[in-house]
């Protein structure tokens, strides 16, 4: 099956001519949505509108025909991220959990796997001639192989200088061999010669045309460079020198809004004839197809609005609650937003930090830990490999209204430097902290996605030990008991783990009634030892007792009361209730430990069905249900 269709696709690719596409009306007219593609990742598109797309969390490769029929072409892939056509009907698939690239044969069979030991969380792929180009997000490099899997050369490394990357997401190669890389963490596109020599870069962080917010998928066709601008929810089109030529896509506001409205587009593909474009939106489990506009003056007027910012509000993914305070990470603004949580709706009181690589600024925003007494907020920055400490001024009695200057940067820990000084013997690479918790003695427990472990530091920030190496692969969240005797870790690749006692005896926790873990993300421990875990793949919260026995799960995908869409952070408040960041629903929900719905906050469009369940069958903009 793969052989026949991909053979055709390979043939169609050949006659593409440089400059051909520039003579036609631009791409950007919405054609159709393809829903229910679980965490849609890399894709390939043919001239007829047939789509080959990876389902990241389910580990599958689907073929979705233009008429909507679906076939599973390959299964058992380990968090597949991107695919590229090889010669003779082959496919190359990058797999994040195995940190390798698989070459699939014409029948979908695994022919060989390569890159293991060299790659870490490989993401984007391209194949031109005999070369296979890999954007290696974990090691912040581009690696080049031949189709037999032999490593030819590589370039890059972590950093912000020209030629360095922070989490490169995708790679594309033009007919002259120039290599285009979407440098996601640096919000720029970089261009290299065929040998990997830096040529130029363009872009910076921002919402205006020509700027980026976490660029992801990149495709080169003729003299046009198409870039999925994930955080700006659009596609921008450039010439090879970086001149902005075109843009399309508008930020989705309504729940699961599609029909041309985009929500964090990542993978991008163009049909060989350049008449169609496909965008994968993993956060809403969807692929959208676009065709060329009619090219009329009306089309041009309508397109003036495309690619411009629309107001919206996102929460999380991470959350921290202590006393009356609720802190939510906000990756879009590279900051943490502080709320007072003592009222029915959290009241925003300050914003902490902002985008940058200098001291006191954040490039990536991961988990947090807030100590109420000292008013200290520690924030993980996996992109810059550091922990930053901010301190709230004033007192709890003074928290009225918003004050942009309420939080002050105090100090940071450079984990790359700390590894050089104290951890070099036990850690292969600089830790990339994604989650943080502290026990009652002040020890720091840091989930390290780069080395697949938990790094433990003393209250003086000196290195103590590593926990979970060999068990963990891609930790995303953790929680430690007050006495420091039990450490729970959510790992999106390997499930949920408990490490207990002085020797950190390991035990895996099964998901229980909600089925196997798909993408566990975060955990919270109640004072009685009960454990609560979010699973963004299953759209659930699961509760365990203090002994790690499954108690209950609740949730399911949806907008109604108690339902979730990709729940992420979870935290217990001072009343003992749980607040869950219902991330793709742009809202927070609060529950009792028994899973009973307590309340909700966020945009009305996203909270309406939960607040007013009797309005289930009325349109969201009917006005009914206004407070």
């Amino acid at each position, binding site marked *: 099956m793969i052989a026949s269709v991909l053979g055709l696709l390979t043939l169609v690719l050949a006659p593409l001519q440089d400059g051909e596409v520039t003579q036609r009306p631009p791409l950007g007219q919405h054609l159709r949505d393809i829903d229910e593609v679980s965490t849609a990742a890399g894709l390939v598109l043919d001239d007829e509108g047939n789509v080959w797309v990876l389902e990241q969390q389910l580990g599958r490769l689907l073929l979705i025909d233009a008429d909507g029929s679906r076939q599973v072409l390959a299964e058992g892939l380990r968090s597949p991220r991107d695919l590229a056509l090889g010669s003779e009907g082959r496919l190359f698939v990058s797999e994040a959990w195995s940190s390798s690239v698989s070459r699939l044969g014409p029948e979908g069979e695994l022919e060989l796997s390569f890159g293991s030991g060299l790659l870490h969380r490989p993401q984007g792929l391209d194949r031109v001639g005999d070369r296979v180009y890999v954007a290696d997000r974990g090691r912040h490099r581009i690696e080049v192989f031949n189709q037999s899997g032999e490593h030819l050369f590589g370039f890059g490394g972590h950093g912000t200088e020209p030629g360095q990357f922070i989490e490169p997401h995708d790679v594309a190669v033009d007919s002259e061999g120039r290599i285009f890389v979407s440098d996601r963490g640096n919000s720029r596109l970089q261009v290299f010669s065929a040998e990997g020599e830096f040529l130029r870069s363009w872009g910076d962080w921002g919402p205006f045309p020509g700027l980026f917010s976490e660029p992801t998928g990149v495709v080169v066709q003729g003299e046009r460079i198409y870039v999925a601008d994930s955080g700006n929810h659009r596609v921008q089109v450039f010439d090879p020198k970086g001149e902005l030529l075109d843009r399309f896509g508008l930020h989705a506001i309504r729940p699961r809004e599609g029909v041309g409205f985009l929500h964090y587009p990542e993978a991008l593909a163009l049909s060989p004839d350049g008449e169609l474009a496909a965008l994968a939106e993993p956060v809403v489990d969807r692929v959208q197809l676009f065709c060329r506009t009619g090219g009329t003056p009306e089309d041009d007027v309508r397109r003036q609005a495309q690619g411009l910012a629309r107001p919206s509000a996102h929460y999380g993914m991470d959350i921290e609650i202590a006393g009356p305070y609720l802190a939510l990470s906000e990756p879009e603004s590279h900051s943490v937003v502080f709320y007072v949580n003592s009222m029915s709706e959290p009241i925003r009181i300050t914003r902490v930090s*902002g*985008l940058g690589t*200098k*001291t*006191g600024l954040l490039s990536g925003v991961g988990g947090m830990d807030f100590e109420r007494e000292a008013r200290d907020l520690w924030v993980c920055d996996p992109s810059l490999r550091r922990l930053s*400490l901010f*301190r709230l*001024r004033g007192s709890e009695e003074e928290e009225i209204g918003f004050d*942009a*200057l309420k939080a*002050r*940067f*105090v*100090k*940071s*820990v*450079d*984990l790359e*430097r*700390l590894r050089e*000084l104290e951890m070099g013997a036990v850690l292969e690479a600089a830790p990339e902290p994604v989650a943080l918790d502290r026990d009652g003695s002040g020890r720091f427990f840091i989930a390290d996605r780069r080395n697949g472990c938990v790094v433990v530091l003393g209250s003086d*920030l000196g290195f103590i030990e590593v926990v979970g190496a060999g068990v963990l692969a891609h930790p995303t969240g953790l929680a430690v008991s007050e006495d420091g005797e039990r450490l729970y870790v959510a790992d999106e690749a390997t499930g949920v783990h408990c490490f207990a006692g002085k020797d950190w005896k390991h035990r895996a926790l099964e998901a229980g009634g909600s089925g196997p873990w798909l993408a566990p993300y975060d955990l919270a421990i109640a004072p009685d030892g009960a454990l609560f875990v979010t699973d963004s793949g299953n759209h659930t919260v699961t509760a365990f007792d203090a002994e790690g026995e499954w108690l209950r799960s609740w949730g399911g995908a949806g907008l109604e009361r108690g339902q979730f869409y990709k729940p992420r952070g979870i935290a217990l408040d001072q009343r003992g209730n749980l607040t869950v960041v219902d991330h793709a629903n742009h809202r927070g929900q609060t529950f009792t430990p028994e899973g009973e719905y307590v309340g909700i906050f966020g945009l009305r469009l996203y909270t309406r069905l939960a607040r007013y369940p009797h309005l289930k069958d009325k349109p969201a903009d009917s006005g009914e249900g206004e407070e």
Partner: protein
Amino acid sequence: MQLQRLSVGQRPRVGLLLAAAGFVLVSLGFARSLSQEGQGAERVSIVSNDGTYRVQYDLEPDVIEFGELFSLTLWPERVDGEEFASSLAVDARMPEHAHGMNREPKVERREDGSLRVTNLFFHMPGYWEIYFDFTRGAITERAQFPVDVD
């Protein structure tokens, strides 16, 4: 246009001239006064935000004009009396506008052990914060003071 120094919890206000203040001790939450004996009368002392470092600084000129270059002389030390042995980076930022200066400050060590910071420039009026970031090992800690330029 004037530059002003503040005391605890105050929002900066325009109109008080540093030159007029003459000898000023600034307390910024964690600040403590130093004996000024034997030192320049215009030195100001602040303590870093986690209490590890103390730095005295002197501005030049005393009254900073908007859109004019100015410089700082610093005398840093550790509060616990240990050898300083830390590197220093200086920066300034408008936190309410989420941007910094359009120039990179230059820091050079002088023979007397002090540090001279040049190429400081406020290109916009409004509320600024000047940062001294001390790094020792893997830890960087900040001392800061606010200024208001109009």
